[in-house]
């Protein structure tokens, strides 16, 4: 079949089923050429085939003589390894892996040509068999989403699942998560769960379908932490660019500080909880070292408590020079119940905003001030603007990260609607989100 006119192309392309084997003859300015291969998915208007030498090539459909050799064979399914343990090994702790998706569990998607989350817990275990040497792993796939698609209601479901797993005997929890919003989820779990055991969030910055992926090292390190005597919500990710150690970050103090690098996760206004020294050749050699005080594991079942209620109608506003304060009124009119401001420096917005702030606070909407500086604490007693803002009723977010402050505000408003209590809770350290003091970094 030869394609000559444009309007015919689309109909023809529809018939070119992915996976079909075709031979394409094309005339070029210096002779004709024949390509043979398997039709691949494409987002462009060209025919993309995989040649027998493994290369994908794109061919313009105009003047292409396409001959179907054989119909579509489904792409071979991933061969399931028998390596996944079904029998639990005595003496090893029981860990639950709750999978939410993200790069750590992702692979190539031919429809979009991009990386998307598709791996199940079994796939992760199959790819990282070392996990089976560290613990008896139970797994559950909650979501298969990239973390930018997370929602506050998913945090609630996740916290509930974590609670259930701990209740039914898991000695530690690993949550695999996309890195983009892992900090938010970590903060949410920190507030929602009082835990007697480790709850470890882990992700990867390089997809697990590539040999250099950080997924294995991060997951193995996370498993080690999940078997430790820590009883907090933490994030375990690469410490620096080398595959030498991972850092354990407190769930309320951790922030993704780099778009792509392995060492993206940093503890802000706090030293990391600890370090995991990695050894690729000997899993037994991997050591967990704690760098600061942490809450220890207990056997007291009463320690486990779930308070998952959230008021998700909260927002955060990033101030910039000349920003219009009417945005506050807009959110108030839209029925928002709480606002976090990301102010400048010690915690400022323009004096033009004072009237608006005061009005919104008076209407019963708490306004929490954080800083765009990220490092250091908010202090509104130093400059006049700050003092005016305090008079207008803002709540100082101390040294909380703006994202943590937002999640906390949602959670606090889920627990109480009493404004005095909201103010108290926001300024009181509940899950390590407010440091007693900061040191030189």
């Amino acid at each position, binding site marked *: 079949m030869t394609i000559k006119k444009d309007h015919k192309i689309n109909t023809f392309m529809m018939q070119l089923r992915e996976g079909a084997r075709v031979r394409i003859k094309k005339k070029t*300015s210096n002779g004709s050429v024949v390509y043979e291969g398997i039709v691949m998915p494409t987002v462009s208007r*060209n025919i993309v085939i995989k*040649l027998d030498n*493994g290369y994908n090539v*794109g*061919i313009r459909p105009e003047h292409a003589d396409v001959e179907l050799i054989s119909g579509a064979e489904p792409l071979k399914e991933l061969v399931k390894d028998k390596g996944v343990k079904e029998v639990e090994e005595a003496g090893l702790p029981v860990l639950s892996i709750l999978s939410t998706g993200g790069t750590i569990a992702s692979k190539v998607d031919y429809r979009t040509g991009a990386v998307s989350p598709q791996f199940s817990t079994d796939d992760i275990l199959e790819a990282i068999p070392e996990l089976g040497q560290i613990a008896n792993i139970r797994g559950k796939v909650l979501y298969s989403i990239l973390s930018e698609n997370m929602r506050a209601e998913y945090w609630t479901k996740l916290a509930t699942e974590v609670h259930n797993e701990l209740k039914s005997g898991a000695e530690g929890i690993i949550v695999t998560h996309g890195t983009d919003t892992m900090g938010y989820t970590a903060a949410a779990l920190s507030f929602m769960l009082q835990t007697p055991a480790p709850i470890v969030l882990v992700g990867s910055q390089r997809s697990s379908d590539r040999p250099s992926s950080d997924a294995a090292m991060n997951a193995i390190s996370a498993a080690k932490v999940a078997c430790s005597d820590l009883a907090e919500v933490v994030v375990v990710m690469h410490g620096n660019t080398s595959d030498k150690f991972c850092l354990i970050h407190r769930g309320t103090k951790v922030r993704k500080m780099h778009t792509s690098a392995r060492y993206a996760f940093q503890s802000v206004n706090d030293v990391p909880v600890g370090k995991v020294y990695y050894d690729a*050749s000997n899993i037994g050699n991997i050591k967990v070292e704690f760098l600061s005080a942490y809450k220890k594991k207990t056997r007291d079942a009463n320690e486990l408590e779930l308070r998952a209620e959230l008021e998700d109608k909260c927002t955060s506003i990033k101030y910039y020079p000349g920003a219009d304060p009417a945005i506050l009124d807009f959110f108030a009119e839209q029925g928002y119940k709480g606002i976090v401001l990301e102010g400048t420096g010690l915690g400022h917005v323009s004096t033009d905003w004072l009237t608006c702030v005061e009005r919104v606070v008076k209407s019963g909407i708490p306004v929490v001030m954080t800083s765009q500086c990220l490092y250091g604490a908010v202090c509104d007693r130093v400059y006049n603007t700050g003092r005016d803002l305090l008079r207008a009723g803002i709540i100082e977010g101390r040294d909380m990260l703006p994202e943590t402050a937002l999640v906390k505000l949602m959670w606090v408003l889920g627990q109480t609607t009493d404004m005095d209590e909201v103010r108290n809770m926001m300024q009181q350290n509940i899950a390590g989100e407010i440091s007693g003091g900061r040191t030189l970094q």
Partner: protein
Amino acid sequence: MTPKTESKEVGLKAGLEIHQQLDTHTKLFCNCPTRLRDKKESNFSFIRYLRASKSEMGEVDAAALEEQKYSQTFLYKGYDSTCLVEYDEEPPGELNGEAIETALEVALLLKMKPLDEVHTMRKIVIDGSNTCGFQRTALVATDGVLQTEEGPVRVDSLCLEEDAAQKLEPEGDAVVYSLDRLGIPLVEVCTAPDIKSAEQASKVAGQLGMILRSTGKVKRGLGTIRQDINISIEKGARVEIKGVQNLRLIRQIVEKEINRQLKLIELKQILNRRGAWVEDRIENLSDIFVNTSSRVLKKADNNVFGVCLHGFTGILGTELQPDRRFGSELADCARKYGVGLMHTDELPAYGITEDEVERMRSAFDAGEHDCVVIVATGRERAEKALNAVLARAEEAMHGVPKETRRALPNGCSAYMRPLPGAARMYPETDVPPVEIETRKLTRIKAQLPETFEDRKARYKEKFNINEELADKISRNHYFTLFERIMKSYAGLSATLVVRTLTDTLAELVQEGVEVDNLGDQHFMILFEQLAANSFGKEAIPAILTLLANKPDTSIEQAIAEIGLGVGIEEVTRAIADIVNSKKDFILENGERSVGPLMGVVMNDLRGKVDGKVINKILVEQVKAVLDEL
């Protein structure tokens, strides 16, 4: 028997794969310069591990898997001229447009057909040479052809690839790579297995190299071009020999690989006749060597393990290539796990006694035809190494194994890894496909450098040289130098310059002169002085030899050292001496005496002055003697 006929008789099929670095401003997927650095300038380093992953079809490639068996630590050295892309800490940028243009230019010169849309792929490589565990590569064009004297050679594919990191000396247990080279654009040109002789292989490599250089957009110098050769003979198997840096080695490599395959086929027949077999039992032989005087075994705390290859006696000692026996092939396999081996074909030796050898044999009930191979190391490593040895011995009973080998400087090769399969390729989703517009192709086509044929016609016309010489120089990589010389120095014979740059150099190579040491500047000054009559053309080989041996010598020094550069007066005097001593001969033979006398004179003065000048002086003097009469 000449190698050429030999190649034909064995049914040689060879193909070339040439990797040429491009001289682009930036790397293939980032804005870093394509400049190599002094390794001492590295300002930081980091370590990584790599894991084999499922390819898109859900299969782990054999070559990738084998590499992963050697769980290795990779140490990477970075510079102020490398970025997060090389560190695998940032997604790659878009495919470098400048590199695509050069690749298309080469493709068109090779009469290839460019693709409409170029897709970047990931080729899994987990030896650490790429920080991400794969090499990015894109097929740009297919179906070209190269005309050679022995017939056409099809050019199957041209790919644009990123160069790998450069391997440095290991540090402790870590394999060390320098990241300055990683990401430099390369074109990879692959021919079909249409090459039928070693000589043709060498010529094809030369022609391809010249076409690449004719664009003026490729890097030059050591390490900027690397050749891989695919070789198979009838009843043999496809073997890929990687990393040939010197064009001149290609012929030798092909010849030596033919011999290796022939020998392996012979060994197979012997083994089959003997009913040889491989016993997959690994024995702990440590007890035998408790009191050994072998230093190697002592160093391994007397941890000695062995296997028995039944019917292999004498086989391990059989030479496959100069200084490489079948035992060396087994040793290559063991060396992958960092251990050396010893076998009964070469023992007793190295401090191992006759008695110890006997006990090794009896541990396996080995007869006189059986060979015992041992390694001295801990159990885990020993088992891996010996299993590799057993697998290789097993293959010997089937003839030549398909494999990737590493070229050695002497033209031999050593085992590297199994041949890669097609499964090690999957799409690089971080890099969008690039559509090649017809407009772009038309523009590039209009600006293509001159082809051989056009150049040949131009030379014939402009320099008035014959067909043969014009063909020779237009295909020779010195053609630009030839034009420069002719333009710079008036009065030179084009024929002489061509002969010097082609035949004379070829002869010097035959004589073992290191002509690679000669730079353009050497030839320029040589012809400048020749044009100025500082010496005769007969002296050219001697001068070039001297300059090749001592490249820092000035031309004046060279002339003085060879004893050239006599003045006309001195020449006249020398000729007068000879003429005076042969007066009787001249008187007897008249003008006919010039011929024989010329021989005598040239014996003394060859190269010092142009023969024509000498002849003129001689004729004058002979005439003067006859006139005296």
